[in-house]
């Protein structure tokens, strides 16, 4: 059976995809309104600040932003993969268990109350988004478990209801907020990548990387879980432990991503499907490759967002939806003969 996935085959594919990611990141670093010469960049930062502008733009402004986009893209795509498997629902995305509305509510409360100060280099908006996301997921998990022991349907329903309720509260708060507060809230809700300082990047990179590796370790269990929970238990998998692990880590990395960049839609839904269409549903391959392509997609989308209407910038969420939707539909049409659940 030469068709089965082996570590060697997977490693080869991951390395190829990482090379593509590196190339895209380099390309996007060099793209922008300000022309940059590589020669000048390699000359180093120079003795005094402002001596080598090209270096400062590339290393100080563009690179952190590209890295940030890559991190967020990887986290969202991974969460999407795992949640689609655990909930056995192709429509699941990282926000399905209420993360989006919880984080949104946290952010609008932070903006309206005007609190200031930082924590681990994170702004009050980031911190409250993270807190709102985690609290909401916990709430949804609690309600879902309270109503039925292991029914994923209850969990999905709880997520939808909490999303709708918090959405209404967000609307209410927006309607009583001042106009400049409304503006920054809306920009955040549309998903917006901005420059962050290095400590924030380091902390989030470590969190997200730890999350992806942890989730990778349960991928073979996710394969069995798509066949149903009793089936999975028959194959020797502790479903409650696996579910808790999966929900915990996806909530965590999604919350980190959301606190960095707001609500970027589409990545967590379409990247897993696109990779699955091309490479098949084996999660041990789907998860790492989706993470890499989530990064590639978001890095490219963010580069578009900051150049397409330069010197102004678009929220990246607008680009992911506008570019991602048709791209995904085209892929779906091309591969639909291969996809069983569409029929």
């Amino acid at each position, binding site marked *: 059976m030469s068709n089965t*996935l082996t570590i060697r085959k997977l490693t080869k594919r991951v390395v190829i995809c990482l090379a593509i990611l590196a190339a895209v990141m380099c390309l996007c670093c060099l793209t922008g309104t300000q022309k940059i010469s590589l020669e000048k960049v390699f000359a180093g930062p120079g003795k005094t600040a402002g001596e080598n502008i090209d270096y400062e733009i590339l290393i100080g402004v563009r690179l952190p932003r590209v890295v940030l986009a890559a991190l967020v893209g990887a986290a969202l795509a991974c969460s999407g993969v795992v949640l689609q498997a655990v909930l056995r629902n192709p429509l699941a995305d990282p926000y399905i268990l209420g993360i989006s509305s919880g984080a949104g509510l946290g952010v609008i409360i932070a903006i309206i109350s005007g609190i200031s100060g930082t924590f681990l280099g994170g702004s009050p908006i980031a911190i409250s988004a993270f807190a709102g996301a985690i609290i909401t997921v916990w709430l949804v998990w609690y309600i879902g478990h309270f109503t039925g022991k292991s029914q994923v349907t209850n969990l999905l329903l709880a997520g939808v209801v909490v999303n709708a309720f918090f959405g209404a509260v967000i609307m209410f708060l927006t309607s009583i907020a001042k106009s400049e507060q409304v503006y920054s809230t809306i920009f955040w809700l549309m998903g917006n990548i901005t420059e962050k300082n290095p400590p924030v990047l380091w902390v989030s990179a470590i969190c997200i990387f730890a999350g992806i590796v942890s989730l990778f370790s349960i991928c*073979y269990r996710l394969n069995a879980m*798509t*066949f149903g929970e*009793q*089936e999975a238990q*028959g194959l020797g998998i502790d479903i409650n432990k696996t579910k808790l692990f999966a929900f915990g880590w996806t909530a965590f990395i999604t919350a980190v991503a959301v606190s960095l960049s707001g609500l970027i839609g589409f990545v967590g839904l379409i990247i897993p499907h696109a990779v699955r269409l091309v490479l*098949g549903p084996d999660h041990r391959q789907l998860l790492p490759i989706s993470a890499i392509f989530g990064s590639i997609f978001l890095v490219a989308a963010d580069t578009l967002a900051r150049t397409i209407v330069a010197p102004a910038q678009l929220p990246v969420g607008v680009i992911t939806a506008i570019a991602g939707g048709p791209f995904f539909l085209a892929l779906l049409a091309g591969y639909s003969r291969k996809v069983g659940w569409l029929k």
Partner: protein
Amino acid sequence: MSSIIEVKNLSFAYNQESILNDLSFDVTSGQFLTIAGPNGAGKTTLLNLICGILNPAGGFVKIDGCNVKSYSIKKLAQKVAVVRQEFVPPFDFTVEETVMMARAPYLGAFGFESKADEEIAALALEMTETIRFARRPLAHLSGGERQRVFIARALAQNTPILLLDEPTSFLDMKHQTGIYDLLKKLQLEKGKTIVAVTHDINLAAQYCDKVLLLGADNYHIGKPGDVFTTELLEKTFGVRIFAVNFGQEKFFIPSGKLAKPAGPNRTTSFIPDS
């Protein structure tokens, strides 16, 4: 022969509604047991108790001399494989990917199969004659083919015990006998202990060594010829039944109130044309 499955004074209830009450029987290693009975008598519940998914309200199930609940989920999956009524997942796994999942109870931290695992899966595909569509997605198979794939998966799990929940429902006659032939082959060639829940008592009787007839408030266990009698079946299922003798075997045909009358005698002897 030692008993590989031992069920003792087993009781189970869903929300105080008693399903199984004081059930005791055992299955020796390498035996083929059929569980039959009306809907709602608790056949699937019994299967779930044997494979540890449900907890008994009283009594116990022992596998290989140890209580089912004392096994870890992983260890139990190395003893018992279950084939359930077929479920096709929302994502398109191929036949070989599906069968390979059976190796999950034996995998290490990150869950990659070794060469040996691959060989075991390939053998299972070959034995169940599913190897010729190994690369096809599950959704593109017929019900009978898919059922064979799930049996292949249970086989690749390398367990001494195989539990099956209505393996032949929704299948045509050819595929029904195909599945039972396959199960018999696994019993005889691989020494598997097979426990199958079924509604098709005529077919099951031709293959199994032992029968558990599970009624709403009683049960009978024994050889097919002793348990499958017109009297016991009529009492358990609550329907009029005709028995037809054909050679050594006895076949049972249910007859509803409005069915065409089938002769004056309830037990007719069928004499084959010579």
